[in-house]
């Protein structure tokens, strides 16, 4: 019986690792040990900290060091970013956001990506400041209200361009945004129960919604939203359809009155009231709340939903979302504190939550990177502007190869692993495999496209984080196998989601031994400790490292 009842007691390492892997991109041995002593309640609360951004003023000019976005007066949009091309500017914006994610020890950017995966944009190449504006909106609402976000993102310039609502006007209605808003962003398409009737809405509703959404135009850079301080679209009277908007029985035949007003300003203000009524109408349907809780469930918990989970998890969470007037935080906290999330709500060992999902490129890249403390090698922007961007860019660019086209999904449906049948399994494809399985080698050799110096020194890493002796001699021979077992177990318990047993455990252990004995490895190890010469010990540790990173288990979390 899937249960949202809170989990009690301290987490321990295994569950702490589970929570960190599912909710953040920073999973290190130290953090696992720190969270292991906490209760689920305390741990989740800690994850919702509101830490400052690493570069709060956004991407900065590599030449001047000035913040590209904020140095401009309110009237002009940024355009001088070192004289870079639009394509490069977009990449710099992406790298800025990527850097914030990579160093975010909280759940914030994980939630920001959830919002992005829910309200997809793409085609960003020549739309750099719009992309930045959209990313700030994601950050602004990561701990916020998804209903308010739905309103704000409708007027977001990036979205307006991506789905054409910017050019949707009374004389030439464009249904693109209206359709995706209903079909993909909010209530979702239900079963087709008649000609043009998708249960939750109809084709006529799309036409009506498109009319309601006419006239919101990206006016100029200076036109900012009063709440967020971000650029927003402006209601333009001449472009709006002022008729009353009659929706179908899916929405109780609701009529949203066309905007009125004594003058242009009043009419344009009332256009926003129409938009708000429209949002209220859609969010007034429980199905909308359920759609979001299902998405949250797939995103954080499991690829599999069934009738029991619908009854015991989705429906109560949807009600909670409604009760909280669509604030996401209480809902996500309830989910991550629940017995269900930790596999403790039933005796059924088959429906395991832990390790039941496949890592996306984001988790694979960033968690690996952070676990190995490689992110610490990325120089701060202040000290080394060139290499800061170069390093971040090198890592970010790997994402595409890994099947995660960062902020450039192939279509408005989004990233395969978030919506396609099979969910997270879609992250692991034949194309991604060779890149994912080459990653260990790139880490070891620092071999990135940009010749980044981010390179893992294996022996010091294992020395710092795990237990191996400093001295070893004949008197220790009887303990050699036990020492190796301690070491291997310590590593596997924090790097793999489930501790392997039997032959599989031996496979990982034998990778360390490299066909030789425990005694041999320990001699190699102390030789390294004495001389600093890594050549022998790296052979064994490299085998071990590759065996772990390229294991099927490591792909799951």
């Amino acid at each position, binding site marked *: 019986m899937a249960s949202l009842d809170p989990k009690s007691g301290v987490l321990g390492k295994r569950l702490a690792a589970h929570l960190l892997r599912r909710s953040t991109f920073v999973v290190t041995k130290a953090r696992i040990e720190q969270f292991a002593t906490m209760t689920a309640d305390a741990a989740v609360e800690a994850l919702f900290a509101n830490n400052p951004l690493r570069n709060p003023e956004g991407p900065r000019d590599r030449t001047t060091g000035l913040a590209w976005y904020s140095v401009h007066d309110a009237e002009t949009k940024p355009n001088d970013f070192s004289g870079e091309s639009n394509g490069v500017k977009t990449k710099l914006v992406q790298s800025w956001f990527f850097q914030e994610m990579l160093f975010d020890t909280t759940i914030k950017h994980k939630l920001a990506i959830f919002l992005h995966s829910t309200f997809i944009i793409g085609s960003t190449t020549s739309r750099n400041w719009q992309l930045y504006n959209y990313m700030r909106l994601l950050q602004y609402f990561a701990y916020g209200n998804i209903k308010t976000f739905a309103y704000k993102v409708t007027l977001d310039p990036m979205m307006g361009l991506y789905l054409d609502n910017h050019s949707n006007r009374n004389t030439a209605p464009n249904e693109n945004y209206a359709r995706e808003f209903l079909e993909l962003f909010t209530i979702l398409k239900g079963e087709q129960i008649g000609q043009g009737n998708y249960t939750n809405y109809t084709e006529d509703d799309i036409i009506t919604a498109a009319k309601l959404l006419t006239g919101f135009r990206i006016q100029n850079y200076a036109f900012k939203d009063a709440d967020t301080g971000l650029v927003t679209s402006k209601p333009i009277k001449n472009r709006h359809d002022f008729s009353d908007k009659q929706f179908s029985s899916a929405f109780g035949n609701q009529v949203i009155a066309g905007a009125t007003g004594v003058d242009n300003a009043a009419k344009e203000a009332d256009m926003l009231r129409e938009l708000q009524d429209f949002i209220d109408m859609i969010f007034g349907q429980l199905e909308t709340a359920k759609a979001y809780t299902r998405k949250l469930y797939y995103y954080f918990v499991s690829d599999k939903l069934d009738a029991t989970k619908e009854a015991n998890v989705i429906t109560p969470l949807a009600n909670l979302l409604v009760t909280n007037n669509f604030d996401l935080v209480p809902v996500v906290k309830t989910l991550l504190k629940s017995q269900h999330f930790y596999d403790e709500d039933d005796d059924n060992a088959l429906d395991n939550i832990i390790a*039941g999902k*496949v890592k996306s490129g984001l988790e694979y890249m960033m968690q690996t990177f952070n676990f190995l403390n490689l992110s610490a090698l990325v120089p701060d922007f202040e000290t080394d502007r060139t290499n800061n961007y170069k390093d971040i860019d090198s890592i970010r660019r790997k994402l595409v190869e890994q099947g995660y086209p960062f902020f450039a999904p192939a279509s408005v449906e989004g990233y395969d692993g978030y919506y396609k049948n099979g969910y997270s*399994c879609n992250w*692991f*494809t034949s194309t991604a495999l060779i890149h994912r399985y*080459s990653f260990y080698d790139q880490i070891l050799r620092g071999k990135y496209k940009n010749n980044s110096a981010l390179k893992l020194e294996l022996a010091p890493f294992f020395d710092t984080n795990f237990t191996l002796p400093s001295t070893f001699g004949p008197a220790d021979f009887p303990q050699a196998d036990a020492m190796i077992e301690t070491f291997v177990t310590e590593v596997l318990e924090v790097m793999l989601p489930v501790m392997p047993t039997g032959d599989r455990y031996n496979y990982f252990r034998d990778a360390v031994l490299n066909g030789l004995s425990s005694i041999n490895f320990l001699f190699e190890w102390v030789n390294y400790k004495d001389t600093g010469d890594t050549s022998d010990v790296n052979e064994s540790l490299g085998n071990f490292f590759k065996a772990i990173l390229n294991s099927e288990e490591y792909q*799951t979390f």
Partner: protein
Amino acid sequence: MNRRNFLKNAAFTSAPMFLNSMPLGVFASPQMLEAFSCNPDDRSVVVIHLNGANDGLNNLIPLNQMGLYSDYRPNVKFAQNELLTLQADLPDAQQIGLNPNMDDFKHLYENGQMAIVQGAGYPNLNRSHFASGRLWAFGGDGGTYKNNKRGFMAEYLANRYPFYEGVPFSENLDPLGISMGTFEKTFYCSDTIYHTSLKGINVNGFGSAVNSLLGEQISNIPNTDQGSALNHILAVENSVNVYSERVSATFNAGNNIATYDNESLANQLKIIAKLISGGSKTKIFTAGKGGWDTHGDQKNRQNPLLKATGRALRSFQEDLTALGLADKVITVVFSEFGRKFRENGGNGTDHGTLGPMYVVGNGVKAGVYGTNPLLADEFLVKDAPNPNTQLQYDYRTVFGTILQDWMGASDTAITATFKTASFINTKPELILPALKAGPDCQVDPTQGTAITLKAFLEGPMNGSSMNTTLNTNSLLPDKDPYGALQTAYDEAFDATGDAQIVDWVRVELRDAANPATLVAAKAALLQANGQIIDASGTAKVFFGDVPRGDYYVAIQHYNHLGVMTANAITFDDNTAFDFSDPNSAVYTNGAMAQNNVGGILCMWAGDMNGDGTINAVDKNEYWKPEQADNFTYGSSKADLNLDGVVNDVDKNTYWRANNSKQQQF
């Protein structure tokens, strides 16, 4: 499978040949004179996507509307005297002047190897690059079929090989699809992995690269949610692993004869030709070339693209001809939409609607299909042809023709591919009658007559499993000893534990009405745990040429008595039979068909001459002479316990104990 000989049709075909305009010289092409052996399974299709929306109006300039053309395009137009002439005797409405950079297109056309299809697209055309590209790849349009979620090539392959699970099978060891580009893999979009992507891959070293990256795979998969994730990962690993080696092997076995430019499309086609010449039976290859989004500076951007594309197509065609493969491959070139008739203010053109497709190959009935777009059409939509009124060839009728008349897809298959039968009757006759896969030549879907089998041999039996001495001592051959010409998959003899191979056995399907009649037989591999796996490595023994139905199943071994099911069993998705289970009904003539060894039934050892009876002949004519010789797999028959030695144990423990036993069917 329906592979009737097509000879009779090929020689006397009376299909109308003058439906469309054809260039002179086409009738002299040699393939018209040769008999066509009807085997579309050897054929493949190459799909090339011109990514970014190729401006067709500056490919094929409508000579009958030069005035309006020049008016619309004061800056990006070509003057009539710059154009390449195509075929002077075409009717006015089809008269085309080719872009001066399309000399290689002209060459292919005049060589009888290119069809030009005018006004291609789909209803309610979407002018977004990715949306429209996806619609093409998904067999969709802007109306009824806008929500297709799988690539139409995936739909086609799913219908053709319904049993397919992403790994090679005996009849096709190659990836069913190969994608050279990024977007183009969308054609295979589906839950099952139909394609191998070679984008950015060093094909030569692909196999060894993947091999070196994979660790030892996890073997005990729990029946949990993690288990299903792990199974997915294993499936992808296995698919990439087996196909990467195969792709590298065919690539390295193949060659190129013609010269190609060092340019993106040419490089892709060069790899494809090399793969095919190396024996690849991949059905669909997809490739792409970008840069066609010519909103500005059109002439300087489009002209070199056209030149490069023409050169690549011609090199490819010449290569295929030199390699003797020209009758096996057809290439289709498309772009997601065309551009507006009227130029924009930036010496370029904006997104339009319909455009041309090019179909290239020896099997193509060369000519111009359809007429020039109507520049003066009053129903133009934003300066581009109205896709609902000027649509001449829905792209699905073009691909439908290729899949049906070239690849041999049945009406049912085409219907499954496009989710409607409506494109079948409107197909253009693009394929040369002499090479057309007519109704007699169509390939029915391979239903996958396959079976999970388990049996034990008495000789190597050691209590709960079988000894694998022949394997351990590297005595087992890659090729089967039954003359079935089966080859074991690459890692067959590397398996460990219970999956180690004991020996080759022969699996037979026999007629349901008369089990004495053999329907099909193939060699397969017996594992230590009794599982019999296909030589290709799949867990089920697979008979690609046998339709599903009811059959008796028999197992034979070269020195054990055969055993057969008591009844004909019905083949479906999950057919299985365990000969070692005492509760399984096996055929008997009154005696015990097998030996019960501690509750596991084993086939009797001793029939060295394979005549169905264990008697003195076996001992005297086989065991006696062989015990003195060195053991040779295949010619030594008396090694009853399969330990690689013919000695007294074989005679005393097995032959003597089983003397006078008879096969029960």
